[in-house]
């Protein structure tokens, strides 16, 4: 049994002032709600409360009318009744308008909810606005997270008193072993104040205290609610028990509250403990720092104090901190993915376009009705009604109409949000704070209602003004047939506007879809078909030196290679499209960097000998790695074409020397093709490869070139690696194709949503054109009859009508073409070159629009051509 949502009390208070009475109503409702599912219960509550509120509101004001004679209230009630009656009198028009509007409003409500939940309140934490994110700034530091060095953090924590519970966090790929079963868990190493900074209390046991940061006493963990239930069966006596993480014994000291997974879907937290060396690390920046504003302080106090501290640290440690400052963000702003804003504004803009098109359609419909009602309205003027009153009544009517669409729009939004929520893979979802909270809430209802009322004003105003402007004598004198030229011009303008708004949406959607298609199916620089990939992060204790790692990789490759169906097995440190990367500063022998403080950086890969063959990355010059490239022999490297071009322009890189800064020199023995590491920022990035035998690290990934479906080999691959080390977790076992798909999921979402909006826009615009053409033909039946009677051929009439539709469409398309150029520029700029504007897309969709528009004009034109002059003239 679900309690009624809290916001319903507020809604109800519009109708029932007395809190006790509201309590009774809500109590009755909850008692009757029974065993409905959560979604159904919310709906039911909403419907009931809505009905009760309206009834009580009207009842109260009916009483007010009788007793106080409040003129405004009384006339408003009259308008409401009048409006409701006139809507009921034309159920078809009402239904069409409500449905059209619901589509437009629903699209906006959906985007609003996404922005509201993901951008405005992604973290369900108390007083979230007082939680800050502190980032170091410096030359070439573009990010906000992972920017602070341990020594700087410790000094900040020492000196800042405007921010409490200052805490650092460090990403932690934890290999958890509990109940004999290894699993890779997303963990974070955090300072003792983190839970306090976030305002969160563990559900069981305790959080961290400063003493837990002491080296030697730091082997304690807090586990997440999900992990606790999944792996420990929700054991209430878990606190105090031992688990093994990364080969070390840890003691569980607490369980986080349900749904708490900050940051990045973390499920395991351990104290961030610095050894003596780390405490003095000042120019190695990898920590994310957050804190909570002290009572009575605000963000600018904190920013001012941190600026001062940063200045002191700069003077104290000029070597490491030169040009480094601090910036203070709210947690919300600081952790927001920089691209999100652009994409969401694009969506919101598109949704507004859809709504405007819907408005134009509705305004057209209402114009037609206003024409029917001209005489009614003129009569009322004649009988002494004020223009303001009539105007208001029409506006009240259109507002009522708009409100009718609200429940439908909410249902529409709820469905789309549900679809969006469930379609995101769980692996990615955890990096999007707030995703789980997408769905109905009070703010969504409020937004939709307000938007509906505003929309009602927009589409109601034009017809209402026209009606109020009409001259009494003319309207009463006129025969019903002719309508004034002005009104027809307005209708044409509206249709043109619809076309002009629909085209840019179509083009933008086309760009998105095309971009996604190119991402997934275009050349990657390697062959993504038939590849299975998997990752491991080797436990540092077990694999403490390169020899141990090399042994593991060699044995792993051996056991993977013998799986039936595997053509080739290879190892690397980073798989393309996996989101990971390793970047190092380098020196090129003979080409010193112009500014030694800012050396060039390139992507670095350690790969097994077979890697190029397994991935099908071509060797363009020189040679691939061989078994002769091993520990103790000359250190070698293969560079990508882009790296060769950039660092040895116009020269042959083979035989030249380079090194990772402060590392040993390597001789370039080959040049390989470029690959697309990441579609978003690593397309054909300069990269060099080292043989695994000469540069091994604990980040290991295997790739298998297979015959047949690579996914089918996943269990066998897992087994093979467990055979080498039974306590080493293997994760992200998936085909390369799937990795690519997940990597571009954001873009797929973008294009799917844009396509949905564009489709809506197209349908609405075409329906609008059809309606106007049909109306015009009906209006001109008499004239057409005269023309035919005077000898015009049906084809002439047909051409006349289609020509009219074509003119409207062409003008609209021309304006839309201009708009779409602007919009695609915006998309290009906002999406970092992912979507490239393509004139062909614009032309294609202009053609689609014009063709559908002509089809929409065809039916009314045929009707016009078939007009029988006898009948047409008889209607006089």
């Amino acid at each position: 049994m679900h309690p009624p949502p809290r916001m319903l009390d507020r809604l109800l208070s519009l109708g029932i002032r007395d809190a006790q009475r509201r309590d009774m109503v809500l109590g009755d409702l909850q008692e009757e709600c029974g065993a409905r599912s959560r979604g159904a219960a919310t709906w039911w509550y909403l419907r009931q409360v809505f009905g009760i509120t309206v009834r009580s509101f009207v009842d109260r004001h009916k009483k007010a009318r009788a007793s106080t004679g409040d003129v405004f209230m009384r006339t408003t009630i009259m308008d409401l009744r009048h409006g409701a009656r006139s809507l009921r009198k034309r159920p078809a028009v009402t239904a069409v308008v409500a449905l059209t509007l619901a589509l437009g409003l629903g699209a906006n409500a959906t985007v609003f909810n996404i922005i509201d939940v993901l951008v405005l309140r992604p973290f369900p934490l108390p007083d979230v606005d007082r939680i800050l994110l502190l980032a170091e700034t410096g030359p070439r530091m573009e990010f906000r997270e992972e920017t602070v060095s341990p020594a700087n953090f410790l000094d900040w924590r020492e000196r800042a008193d405007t921010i409490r519970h200052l805490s650092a966090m460090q990403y932690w790929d934890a290999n958890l072993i509990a109940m004999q079963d290894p699993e890779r868990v997303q963990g974070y190493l955090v300072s003792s104040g983190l839970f306090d900074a976030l305002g969160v209390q563990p559900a069981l046991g305790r959080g961290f205290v400063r003493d837990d940061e002491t080296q030697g006493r730091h082997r304690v963990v807090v586990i997440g609610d999900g992990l606790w239930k999944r792996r420990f069966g929700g054991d209430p006596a878990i606190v105090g028990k031992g688990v093994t993480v990364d080969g070390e014994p840890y003691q569980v000291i607490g369980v986080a509250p349900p749904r708490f997974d900050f940051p990045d879907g973390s499920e395991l937290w351990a104290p961030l403990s610095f050894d003596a060396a780390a405490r003095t690390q000042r120019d190695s920046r990898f920590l994310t720092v957050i804190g909570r504003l002290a009572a009575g302080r605000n963000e600018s106090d904190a920013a001012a104090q941190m600026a001062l501290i940063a200045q002191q640290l700069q003077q104290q440690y000029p070597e490491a901190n030169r040009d480094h400052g601090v910036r203070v963000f709210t947690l919300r702003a600081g952790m927001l993915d920089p691209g999100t804003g652009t994409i969401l504004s694009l969506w919101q803009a598109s949704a507004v376009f859809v709504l405007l098109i819907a408005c134009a359609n509705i305004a057209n419909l209402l114009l037609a009705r206003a024409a029917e009602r001209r005489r009614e309205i003129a009569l009322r003027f004649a009988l002494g009604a004020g223009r303001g009153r009539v105007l208001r009544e029409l506006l009240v009517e259109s507002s009522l109409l708009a409100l009718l669409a609200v429940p439908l729009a909410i249902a529409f939004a709820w469905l789309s949000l549900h679809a969006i929520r469930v379609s995101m893979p769980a692996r990615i979802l955890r990096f999007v704070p707030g995703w789980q909270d997408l769905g109905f809430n009070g703010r969504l209802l409020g937004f939709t209602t307000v938007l509906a009322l505003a929309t009602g004003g927009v589409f109601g105003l034009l017809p209402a003004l026209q009606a109020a402007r009409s001259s009494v004598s003319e309207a009463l004198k006129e025969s019903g047939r002719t309508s004034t030229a002005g009104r027809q011009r307005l209708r044409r303008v509206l249709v043109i506007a619809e076309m002009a708004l629909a085209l840019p949406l179509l083009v933008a959607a086309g760009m998105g879809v095309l971009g996604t298609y190119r991402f997934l199916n275009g050349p990657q620089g390697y062959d993504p078909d038939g590849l299975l990939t998997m990752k491991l992060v080797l436990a540092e204790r077990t694999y403490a030196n390169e020899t141990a790692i090399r042994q593991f990789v060699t044995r792993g490759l051996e056991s993977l290679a013998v799986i039936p169906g595997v053509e080739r097995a290879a190892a690397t440190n980073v798989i393309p499209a996996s989101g990971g990367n390793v970047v190092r500063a380098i020196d090129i022998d003979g080409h010193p960097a112009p500014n030694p403080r800012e050396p060039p950086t390139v992507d670095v890969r350690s790969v097994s000998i077979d890697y190029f063959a397994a991935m099908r990355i071509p060797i363009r010059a020189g040679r691939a790695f061989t078994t002769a490239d091993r520990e103790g022999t000359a250190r070698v490297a293969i560079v990508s074409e882009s790296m060769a071009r950039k660092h040895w322009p116009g020269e042959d890189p083979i035989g030249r020397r380079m090194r990772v800064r402060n590392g040993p020199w390597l001789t370039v023995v080959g040049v390989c093709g470029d690959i697309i590491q990441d579609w978003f920022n690593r397309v054909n990035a300069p990269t060099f490869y080292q043989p695994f035998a000469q540069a091994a690290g604990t980040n290991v990934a295997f790739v298998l070139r297979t015959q047949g479906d690579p996914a089918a080999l996943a269990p066998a691959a897992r087994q093979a690696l467990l055979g080498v080390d039974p306590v080493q977790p293997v994760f992200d076992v998936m085909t390369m194709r799937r990795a690519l798909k997940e990597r571009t999921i954001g873009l797929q979402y973008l294009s799917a949503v844009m396509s949905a909006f564009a489709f809506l826009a197209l349908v609405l615009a075409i329906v609008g054109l059809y309606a106007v053409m049909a109306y015009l033909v009906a209006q001109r039946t008499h004239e057409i009859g005269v023309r035919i009677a005077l000898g015009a051929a049906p084809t002439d009439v047909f051409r006349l009508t289609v020509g009219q539709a074509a003119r409207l469409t062409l003008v609209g398309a021309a304006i839309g073409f201009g708009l779409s150029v602007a919009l695609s520029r915006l998309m290009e700029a906002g999406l970092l070159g992912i979507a490239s504007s393509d004139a062909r897309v614009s032309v294609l969709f202009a053609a689609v629009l014009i063709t559908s528009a002509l089809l929409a004009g065809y039916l009314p034109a045929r009707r016009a051509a078939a007009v029988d002059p006898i009948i047409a003239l008889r209607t006089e």
Partner: protein
Amino acid sequence: MAEIYLGELEQILLLAVLRVGEEAYAIPILKQIEAQTGRKVARGALYTALERLEAKGCVRSRLGEPVPERGGRARRYFTVTPAAVRALRHSKQALMRLWRGLDSVLEG
């Protein structure tokens, strides 16, 4: 004493409250009406009518104990006042008088 006029819905409501007896709060009242008349009364209409009746002095209400399945909210029980019973009797008699002699027309 001033005469109290009762509308049809008000009469139905009062009779339903009387039939339910001691434990008459909104839910059983609604059920009673539905069971006896086969007519669905909108919840909003019920609440406004009850409020109107209370203002007219036809019903009195009291709060019961908090109930867990109502989220800890109390039920509000309604009882019919003697004045309302008189009014009901009055309208019944008026109707009976009007019915008298019309059985042959209206029955069967």
